[in-house]
């Protein structure tokens, strides 16, 4: 669980971020952000979905305050993720945790939280985060400078990368573990129901689906444990 192991574990994220960051750089340019502004956003915000949405809002001339508020709502799910991650990480000085907390995204969280062992080293997390962050920032700048995407067929094919990674992280934990399979299934079903009913925006929908599934399954298993 060293820094180098972390880099290796984060490689799929770096690959998956490449097409998304390139496109973000390109879109930022067409929206009117300079290379420095686009790159700074990736450097200081480091949140894919929120950054994409902000471009749409900037181009439609939405009030900056609303853009910031919307960003908060989109990222509110990270409260759950970092609270969960805290159970998994080695205890460490608060200032170190405050630093790597910046690098928690859906993707880095997924890689860290699905590690078989508890007490994940801070250096391992640093490796996962650094390679992901590096890819995100560098490819944002490149997308803006080159002003072009990968060839269309490759761009399309690579858009599966992060989802394939989520699948690759989930399935091994699911094998022979009904609780894990149930958690993923409920999370997926609730999110799909919320999505197609149009009840909640994406930021809230993921939060509600995740929390709903996690609580439901926990109660289900707590009750089962008492009966048995």
């Amino acid at each position, binding site marked *: 669980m060293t820094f180098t192991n972390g880099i290796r574990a984060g*490689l*799929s994220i770096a*690959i998956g971020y490449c097409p998304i960051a390139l496109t973000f750089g390109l879109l930022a340019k067409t929206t*009117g952000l300079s290379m420095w*502004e686009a790159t*700074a956003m990736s450097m*200081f*915000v480091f*949140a894919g979905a929120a950054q994409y949405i*902000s471009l749409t809002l*900037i181009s439609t001339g939405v009030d900056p305050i609303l*853009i*910031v*508020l919307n*960003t*908060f709502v989109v*990222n509110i799910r*990270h409260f759950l993720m*970092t*609270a*969960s991650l*805290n*159970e998994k990480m080695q*205890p*460490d000085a608060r200032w170190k*945790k*405050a630093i790597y*907390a910046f690098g928690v995204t859906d993707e880095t*969280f*997924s890689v860290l939280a699905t590690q078989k062992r508890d007490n994940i080293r801070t250096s391992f997390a640093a490796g996962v985060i650094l390679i992901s962050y590096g890819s995100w920032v560098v490819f944002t700048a490149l997308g803006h400078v080159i002003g072009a995407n990968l060839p*269309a*067929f490759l761009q*399309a*094919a690579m*858009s599966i990368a992060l*989802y*394939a*990674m*989520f*699948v*690759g992280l*989930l*399935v091994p934990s699911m*094998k022979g573990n009904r609780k894990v399979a149930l*958690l993923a*299934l409920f*999370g*997926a*079903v*609730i*999110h799909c129901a919320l*999505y197609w009913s149009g009840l909640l925006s994406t930021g809230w929908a*993921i939060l509600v689906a*995740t*929390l709903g*599934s*996690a*609580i439901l*399954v*926990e109660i289900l298993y707590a009750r089962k444990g008492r009966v048995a």
Partner: protein
Amino acid sequence: MEKWYWWIILGMAIVTYIPRAFPLTFLEGRELPPLVSGVLRNIPFAVLGALIFPAILFVQEGNLLFGFIGAVAAFALAFAGANVIIVVMGSIAVLAIYSLIG
């Protein structure tokens, strides 16, 4: 609007950092009730389900079949026991071939 860009970036940076940093620093060294701790340990798998579906089907706008093929490839590789990087590269390869011949 241009002069606002840096302020927007600053604001976004702050509100993105809060939900990331608050739980990790605030909960450090605190023992949580078993039920809460159990729920928190369930989060990773619940969130993976919610992150994958339905979004994996929408990777290419207006073409659900494209995402479906990618999803089948990813699950097939993962259930066959391939490690994460093979699942990622294999799914990309399947879709690249599909878009080239399709």
